[in-house]
C-alpha cells in the first residue's frame, strides 16, 4: 500500500512539475456566451444559472 502510494505520489509530483513547466491545462479558457441579454440585465432572476460567477450577500 505504501509502495503503491509512493508510486502514485511520484506520478502526481511529476505531473505537477510538468504542468508548471509547460503551462499545460486541461481546463478550457473560453467562456460560452449563451445567456441572452435580457437575462443578463436582470441579475436577480438568473443567479442560480451563473455558477461560475462569484456571488456574495443575500440570496
Amino acid at each position, binding site marked *: 500500500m505504501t509502495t503503491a*502510494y509512493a508510486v502514485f505520489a511520484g506520478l502526481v509530483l511529476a505531473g505537477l512539475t510538468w504542468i508548471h513547466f509547460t503551462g499545460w*491545462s486541461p481546463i478550457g479558457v473560453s467562456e460560452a456566451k449563451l445567456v441572452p441579454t435580457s437575462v443578463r440585465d436582470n441579475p436577480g432572476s438568473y443567479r442560480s444559472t451563473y455558477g461560475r460567477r462569484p456571488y456574495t450577500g443575500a440570496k
Partner: protein
Amino acid sequence: MPVRPARARGAALKPPAPPAVASLACHGCGAPLEIRAPGRSLAVACGACGAVLDARDPDYRLIAKFEAQRSVVPRIPLGTRGRLKGETWEVIGYLARRTTIEGAAYTWFEHLLHDPTGGFRWLVEYGGHWTLAKTAAGAPVVVDDGAVYLGERYHHFQTATAEVTYVVGEFPWRVRAGETATVDDYVLPPASLSRERTQQETTWSVGEYLEGEAVWKAFGLPGTPPERVGVGAAQPSPFRPRSRTMALLLASFAAAVVLIHLLFAAFAQQKLVLDAAWEYDPRAPATASVQSEPFAIGGRTSNLVVEVSSTLAQGWAYFTLTLVNEDTGAARTFGREVAYYFGRDSDGSWTEGAPWDRAWLPSVPAGHYTLVVEPESPRPVNYRVRLTRDVPRALWMWVAMGLLAVPPLIFWWRQWTFEHRRWQESDHPLSGGSDDEGDDE
C-alpha cells in the same frame, strides 16, 4: 579446558522420548480412551458417551457423566503433535464452550495442548480466528475500562458467561459439561487477556493471536484452516503498523508539492508582455475590434495570464480575444465575460461578479504576437488588457494536494472499518459505519 555441561555433550540433545500413554476403556461406554499426560491430568472425558473419569484414580473411577448431545469433531485431532512457538505440543483435550448474548448463541473451541516440559497451553478457535493462550504470570490489575498486565494496558472487549457444551480428552481439572464461568476478555492486538471467574476461583490467561495457516503448518494438518469470519478480537490490524508511515508520506509529499510550487513561483518569468487600454462604445463601430501593437513572448512554452479589467458597474461585457502568432500565423481565439452587479434588497446588500477577469492561456510557445480584442456590451465601457508570461498557478498545487490525500483517506477509512468490525462484536461497538461488509480480512 572448561567442563561442558552434560546437556551440551549431547545427553540432553536427543529428541525427547514420546510421552507414556496409558490406555483404558471408558467405564460409561467401553470406548477406548488414552491418557497422554499421566500424572498431570485430573480428569479424562469420553467424547462418545460423556463420561468423565478420575485420571488420578488407579481404577479411573467415574466421577461425572453428562449427556453427549452431539459428536463434535475437534479441528485438531487428539494426539496430534506439532511445534508451535518453539515448543512441541500434543493435543490432549478439547472442549466446546458457548455463550448466549441477546438470544444468540456463540460457540468457540479450545484445544488443550501439553508438553512435558512446557506445561499446558490453550489453542482457542472462534470463527476461524486462533489464539494460543497460557496462564498469566501474576494477576493483572483491572482498571476502569481495561486491565494492566506487565505494564501493558489491555482494553476491555467483552464480558460473558461461558458454558462448557462438549468435552473430550483429558484435563488438569475436573471438567464437566454444563460448567459455567464468567469470562472477561481484554485485548491489545495481537495479545489478549482473559479472566475466568467461578465461585471457586479466578484465573487469568494471556493469549497471542495466530494465523490459521501457522496452526495448520505447525500440526501438519491436511487441507486449509477454516475461513475467518469477521475480525477477531485480537486480530492484528494490517493497517495500524503502516498508519504512521502513511501520515509521514502524506506530509512529505504535501511538502514536496509546496516546494515545487514555490520553486516555480521563484524562478518563473512572470513577465508583463502587454498592457493596453481601450474604450468600447456600441455606437462607434471602430471600437468593435481593436488590435494591439506586436509584442514578444520569450522563454520556453508556458502559460500566459490574460487579465481584463473594466469600469463596468451594473453591466456586462463580453470580450472575444484572439492571440495571433505573427511568426507562424497561428491564432487562438477565446471569449471572456466580465459582469458586475451589486445592490441591496430585503436580505441586505449583495454583489455578483466583478469588474475584472483573469484567465490562464495554456501552452503558449515563444514568438511575436498581436492581440485582437472584439468587445460586446450594451453600454460604453473602458477596459484594459494585461498579458503576463509564465505565471505558476496555485490551483494545480491544491489539485495535487487533493490527489495525494485520496489514498491516505481511503487507507484510514479501511483502518477505521477494520476496527469498527472488530469492536462490533464487543460490549463497546464503535458508532457509525456499517457492519455488512466482507467477512474476511
